């Protein structure tokens, strides 16, 4: 009996509290999450030697942050970056989504392919590639323009907040695409047809009917991408740290791992607290917009599809644009990385450079380090998906099947990690390991700390997918098994699990791929023993070893390309929307 029945005292008999055995498993990530948030709040109020009796509880950290001009410039940069990201992502994703859903353009599977596989190539690689393209000093585009027009310096600077926003916009365009595709599918096309019949022209319909109806969906997608933008660490870390252009996430990074002075965890924690508040506010706004938007969704009935528009001769132009996006977003950066990986030093591509290509970088990288990173990454890729599957199944089962009111709390707790920036989890885990757990649970400097954070972060998405799958398994299928004499365990094994197997497989593959490409948490929690492959790439890059970083990147891509094939074959069902 997995029914979480919390009955109150009711005469004539006293009810017995029956708690399902799944509850402890489901609550573990919640406890970890609560731990992270609480420790951030706790540390933010401390100065002196944190975590000991000598620590004083003051508001000094907050005062320091508010007084620091760097903090304000970081805030401004973050806002500019997030806005630029949202605009670029929506400007690319929305038209492509409209093309896919509302026109008869050919080759739609390819478009979907470009847009979904794109989500899996880490943003850090794109940032690295674009450094080689548009960095003011070493970017080949700038060097060509200087040579062509005789300028003093390269006109394009990818290291500004807007430049970084452009790169992240390219990365998140698939996200905008997926969101708006779902929105177009939910929109009632009859409303537009009614407008056309009433005599409105195409542009008038677009202006007066389509766009107003689409606004809640577009707004919701925009807020979501903005939230992701604010939380981004890997792009500003690659593009901005070198020339001291800080965003909030990188500002937190230099407070935690400063070059010149002692780590100021108190300040980091106070920024973290501010981020929590902002993130929660944005989530609340997002929820409000979604609720308003659901008013416009009408059930159109079985199988009604809108009449698609034939793009005619515009189709070639549209395909050219999509191809151009795929080129600048994935192909070009990765090609540049490959080029640099085989070059002795970073220089724009030329015939001269081509003759100097060699495998010297391959031998130059620290293989002991790389193998250690590989081992850690593989450990994470094996352990984290298994734990995530198990925990999310327990949470979903309780949320979907139990009738107690406590399940709403569980659902909220499961979705909370989605709303908070990953940086916060990393910081929280770090502080927890350093100050709270250090004596009785030595997790610092182990890969297991990273594993715990990954599980908490990935839980939100996995729970959402499992909820969808379990909701489709009608309750009566389990009841029929129970009445037929099967115990709960056997019911779960023989009836429920086979039916949700496709979703479980998708979740497993997605989690594995997202673990492999994860940079932010890996960098914040990196140490001798817990370094992962993406963290190795990052540390080479940070130490100005761009050629080595590029070689390790190439290794990563080649090693894990079979995974991408696996994902392409099996992982695309279930409507995975975000990572």
């Amino acid at each position, binding site marked *: 009996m997995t029914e979480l029945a919390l009955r109150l005292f009711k005469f004539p008999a006293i009810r017995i509290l029956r708690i399902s055995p799944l509850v402890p498993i489901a609550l573990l990530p919640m406890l970890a999450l609560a731990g992270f948030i609480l420790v951030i709040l706790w540390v933010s109020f401390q100065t002196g030697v944190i975590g000991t009796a000598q620590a004083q509880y003051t508001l000094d950290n907050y005062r320091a942050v508010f007084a620091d001009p760097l903090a304000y410039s970081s805030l401004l940069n973050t806002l500019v970056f997030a806005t630029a990201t949202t605009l670029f992502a929506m400007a690319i994703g929305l038209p492509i989504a409209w093309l896919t859903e509302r026109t008869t353009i050919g080759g739609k599977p390819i478009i979907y392919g470009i847009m979904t596989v794109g989500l899996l190539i880490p943003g850090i690689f794109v940032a690295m590639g674009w450094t080689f393209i548009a960095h003011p000093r070493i970017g080949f585009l700038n060097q060509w323009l200087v040579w062509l027009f005789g300028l003093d310096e390269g006109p394009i600077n990818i290291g500004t907040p807007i430049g970084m926003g452009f790169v992240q916009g390219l990365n998140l365009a698939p996200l905008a695409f997926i969101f708006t595709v779902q929105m177009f599918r939910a929109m009632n096309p009859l409303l537009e047809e009614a407008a056309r019949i009433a005599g409105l022209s195409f542009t008038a319909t677009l202006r007066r009917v389509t766009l107003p109806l689409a606004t809640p969906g577009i707004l919701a997608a925009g807020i979501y991408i903005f939230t992701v933008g604010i939380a981004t660490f890997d792009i500003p870390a690659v593009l901005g740290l070198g020339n001291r252009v800080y965003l909030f996430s990188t500002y937190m990074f230099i407070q935690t791992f400063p070059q010149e002075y002692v780590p100021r965890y108190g300040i980091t924690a106070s920024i973290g607290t501010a981020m929590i508040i902002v993130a929660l506010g944005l989530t609340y706004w997002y929820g409000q917009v979604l609720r308003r938007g659901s008013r416009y969704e009408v059930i159109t009935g079985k199988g009604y599809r809108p009449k698609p528009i034939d793009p005619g001769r515009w189709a070639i132009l549209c395909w050219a644009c999509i191809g151009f996006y795929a080129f600048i977003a994935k192909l070009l950066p990765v090609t540049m990385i490959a080029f640099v990986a085989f070059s002795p030093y970073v220089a724009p591509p030329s015939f001269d450079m081509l003759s100097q290509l060699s495998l010297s970088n391959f031998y130059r990288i620290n293989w002991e380090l790389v193998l250690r990173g590989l081992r850690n990454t593989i450990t994470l890729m094996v352990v984290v998906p298994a734990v995530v599957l198990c925990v999310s199944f327990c949470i979903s089962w309780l949320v979907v099947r139990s009738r107690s009111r406590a399940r709403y709390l569980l659902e909220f707790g499961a979705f909370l990690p989605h709303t908070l920036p990953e940086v916060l989890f990393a910081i929280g885990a770090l502080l927890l390991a350093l100050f709270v757990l250090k004596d009785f649970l030595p997790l610092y400097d182990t890969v297991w700390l990273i594993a715990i954070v990954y599980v908490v972060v990935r839980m939100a998405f996995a729970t959402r997918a499992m909820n969808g799958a379990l909701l489709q398994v009608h309750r009566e299928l389990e009841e*029929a098994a129970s009445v*037929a004499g*099967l115990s709960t365990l*056997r019911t779960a094994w023989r009836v429920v699990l*086979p039916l949700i197997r496709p979703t479980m497989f998708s979740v497993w593959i997605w989690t594995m791929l997202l673990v492999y490409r994860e940079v932010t948490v890996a960098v914040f929690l990196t140490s001798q023993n817990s370094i992962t492959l993406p963290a190795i790439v990052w540390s080479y890059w940070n130490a100005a070893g761009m050629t080595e970083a590029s070689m390790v990147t190439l290794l990563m891509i080649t090693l894990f390309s079979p995974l991408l094939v696996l994902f392409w074959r099996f992982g695309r069902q279930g409507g995975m929307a975000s990572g």
Partner: protein
Amino acid sequence: MIVIPADPGESRGRAGIQELDRNLDSRFRGNDEIGPATSFNELLRQDNYRERDKVVIRIRNLEKVFLSARGPVRAVQRIDLDVADSEFVVLLGPSGCGKTTTLRCVAGLERPDRGTIEIAGEIVDSVSEGSYVPPDRRNIGMVFQSYAVWPHLTVYDNVVLPLTEGRYRIAKNQVRERVLEVLSLVRLEGLETRPVTDLSGGQQQRVALARAIVTRPTVLLMDEPLSNLDARLRDQMRLELKRITRSVGVTALYVTHDQAEALSLGDRVCVMNEGKILQVGPPQVVYANPSSRFVAEFVGEMNFISAKVIGPAEAESLLGRVRCSVPPACQTGSEVTLAIRPEHLSLSRSRDEYHPAIKGKVVGINYVGDATLFEVEVGGAAIRVKQPGAPVFAVGDPATIVLTQDSWHVYP
């Protein structure tokens, strides 16, 4: 922390069922010349005739309250019911009357707030004693409205799962025989290897039925199993259901909102409304003598006319003076409601001296093939009259309703 007190009666009951099974098996093995399906039915029928007076399902004081957003909903309010061995009892009522909740309490899928439920002599749910036997240990079979056949398994696997994974497993060498026997009983031979999702609705319903009876349960519970089928199929399946449960001889509790189904299937019909049982009895009795206005209205068609009692066996209504049996509770002068079935009235062009009649005008015709339901306006009230055959009156024609004696019901 799972705390379920052990039920003292449980081990006794299980031993009893095992003994019955052993008896059947030994007699089965002795009868080699009879084919499997027939001998199984024969044996059960012989056993059942001997134990006809035994009560298999005993419900006492059952109460269930649901907490909804609008406050507590009293789904079942203190009902008592007995179902005898091999009896087919139908719970009939409108949506929300508590019939499904009652069935699910008997199945163990709901926990009541008050009362006791006994199956085959052992207490399976008792609120006062705090005992509860979960559904997988009650040896029941259940057919759901949505069939609930397991979509990832074949027909054979669906029916075999209770025998191989449930608590009522049988010896491995007998499994295949039992499954095929039950499949031929529901007329699905030859379809064992089909994925169950390839079957039609009616066939899936039969798989669900086969699965429910394959463990030879004490009790068969059915929750509106025919309501998802289309009309024609529903009528056919009704006859099938009757035949199968009769031949297997299992005790059945059936829930429906369709009164025609209830009347044709049940040995006894139990009419429920708003969580209470209004009347229990054989179908003919419930139809001919409904005990309350609700039952009269719900089971079959009924005309209602307000009247005033003017004598010990007479009442005055807008249809004139009517002879009827007045219940003792209603004294002369009290306002009552008269009720009569449309088939107990007839329409004619003119009146004769032998029967009381009243003139009216036909305002509606509802022709259903074998009969016509006329709506006749008399003195401001619309009276429905049922005549066999095609309509002989047109809308607007004057017609005379002929009143038959002794078919009136009187409700206070």
